[in-house]
């Protein structure tokens, strides 16, 4: 059986070094609030899978991070959200992509897992399923914040040089270097990039692990773009051993099957949780920038990132609690 519960939350890897202090404070407060919600749920013996859903719903409902309300915008100025959830016991999973009117995508992912014969539904089919299941739906405008409208404009200006796939990729590096901001992620200056995907991993008192990740995706993404968050093994993974949620440059995370690899090196190389996290961040990411949070079935919690920062918080039953950005 388990050796105590543990929980971690994140609000994305890759942070603008010039992020105003009051914004940093807001982020920390939100992470703390979400941790406390999770801790309370764990103390009242909710299973891990319910706790990760509950916490990610809270993160989706707050406009601060890039998920649910506050999601990044597509090149068309709309919101297309995606999410996935996985229960370590039985490795059951559910995922959604291209969701435009569902208030809490993570709960729809949970319903795909629990109530559909499939594990992944997308776009109009996912919306249809949402209506069928009677989840709370809102107009797409609900998700769009003024901040993000401004960011999209900036991203478009930057992308006209940086990110047009019709320009041969050989030209891209020199163009990227010409942009003022020293840090570039996914081809965007960090001040605009703001990945801020959210995620939560939990091991409950019985040693059951679960993971959940939710995102609006990449600012100025092509309509239809699917990132790592809904992909089991990439952005989200849980099994008997651990639960993992990743964030950062989605394409790098997909290529390195980052979340599964934390579990794979624990299973096949018999590394401990923190060793496994360090291993995948250092050895698996190639050039990519990303971060992740993880818990193990014996109540450990760990995180790692190779970006300049990651919004994160973690706590465990023995009284440990930490909220940090840098």
């Amino acid at each position: 059986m388990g050796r105590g519960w543990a929980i971690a939350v994140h609000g994305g890897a890759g942070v603008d070094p010039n992020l105003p202090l009051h914004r940093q404070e807001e982020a920390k407060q939100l992470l703390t609030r979400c941790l406390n919600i999770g801790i309370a749920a764990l103390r009242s013996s909710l299973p891990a899978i319910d706790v990760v859903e509950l916490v990610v719903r809270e993160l989706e409902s707050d406009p601060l991070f890039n998920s649910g309300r506050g999601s990044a915008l597509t090149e068309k100025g709309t919101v297309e959200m995606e999410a996935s959830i996985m229960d370590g016991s039985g490795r059951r999973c559910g995922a959604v992509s291209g969701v435009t009117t569902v208030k809490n995508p993570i709960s729809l992912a949970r319903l795909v897992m629990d109530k559909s014969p499939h594990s992944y539904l997308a776009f109009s089919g996912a919306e249809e399923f949402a209506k069928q299941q009677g989840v709370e739906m809102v107009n797409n405008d609900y998700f769009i914040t003024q901040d993000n409208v401004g960011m999209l404009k900036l991203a478009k200006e930057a992308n006209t040089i940086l990110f047009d796939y019709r320009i041969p990729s050989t030209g891209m590096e020199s163009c990227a270097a010409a942009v003022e901001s020293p840090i570039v992620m996914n081809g965007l200056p960090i001040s605009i990039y703001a990945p801020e995907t959210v995620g939560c991993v939990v091991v409950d008192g019985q040693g059951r692990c679960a993971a959940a990740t939710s995102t609006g995706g990449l600012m100025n993404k092509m309509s239809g773009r699917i990132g790592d968050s809904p992909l089991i093994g990439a952005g989200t993974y849980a099994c008997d051993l651990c639960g993992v949620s990743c964030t950062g440059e989605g394409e790098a995370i997909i290529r390195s099957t980052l979340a599964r690899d934390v579990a794979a090196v624990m299973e096949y190389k018999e590394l401990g949780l923190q060793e496994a996290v360090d291993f995948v961040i250092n050895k698996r990411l190639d050039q990519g920038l990303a971060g992740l949070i993880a818990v193990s079935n014996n109540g450990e919690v760990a995180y790692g990132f190779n970006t300049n920062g990651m919004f994160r918080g973690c706590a465990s039953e023995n009284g440990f609690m930490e909220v940090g950005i840098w």
Partner: protein
Amino acid sequence: MVAFPSNKEKKKQKSRVTITQHTEKTFYILRIYGWAAMGWAIALHGGAGDIQKSLPPERREPREAALRHCLEIGVAALKAHKSPLDVVELVVRELENHPHYNAGRGSVLTTHGTVEMEACIMDGKSKQCGAVSGLKTVVNPISLARLVMEKTPHIYLGFDGAEAFAREQGVETIDSSHFITPENIERLKQAREANRVQIDFTQPLPKVPQETPTSSGDSQIGTVGCVAVDNQGNLAAATSTGGLVNKMVGRIGDTPVVGAGTYANHLCAVSATGKGEAIIRATVARDVAALMEYKGLSLEDAAAHLIHESTSPGTAGLIAVSATGEVTMPFNTTGMFRACATEDGHNEIAICPFY
């Protein structure tokens, strides 16, 4: 005619001396440590599933012929020194164009009677990859996946966005009705009557009494895929599918999910087929590579572990090649349409476990 060799004969073929003994010894040592490539290899599949031994010849033979034809195309391309990435794309295009396999033309239908195709391609050395889902008009989904990999900053495009990208890139598109075959209309009807989601390859639930021969017709169709390695050890994998009969609109399976249905790195290339949901949760394709990388297993042992330990009986099959030119094609279903060839002369086309 392709002979189906016994296991003993297969072993003999594998050990056939093709180079001088001295060189072979050196290569053998290098091969043990994974330093030397030993020649090209290719494998392809047309889906794993509940394929009955009683499958009548008129249904088996056209599919065998297609496998043989596609294998020949792939072997010729490898001999002409085409890159494995080009080879797997070429072979999967051919399988997509074949109406008896569940990909491209011949794709099975959603619960609304529509086609939604998906595909994924991955290059081993660079780990570059591209994937698409929810295609309705693109003649060759695998080639669109390749374009996503090469011409966009993204890896994965789905549904309307993927269709818009296809038009922008000028790939061949056609009215959705092109993909729909009478056999698949019939299969959907049967699945609806059975009121359940039917895995692409299962026998339709026999209506009582079974009415026409067509009701057991093209039911053994599955996902298609190809993996290849050249004699420099470059690897690539590609998978394409129409998904499940009577699937919900918007359903995404394992095929386009990198690490689930498709994966390639510097060690091996893998394409999986079977029950998508089972393959996703077992991250089948990535785990073959992970077992080789982290546990030092051989390709054959790694693949066998996935099929016999990590997935339940009746749910999965895979084809895989290693950088050193080994091939393996295990499955835990009744059968899997499969074919492979290696530079040292091994050649196989089979459906059920032993033939």
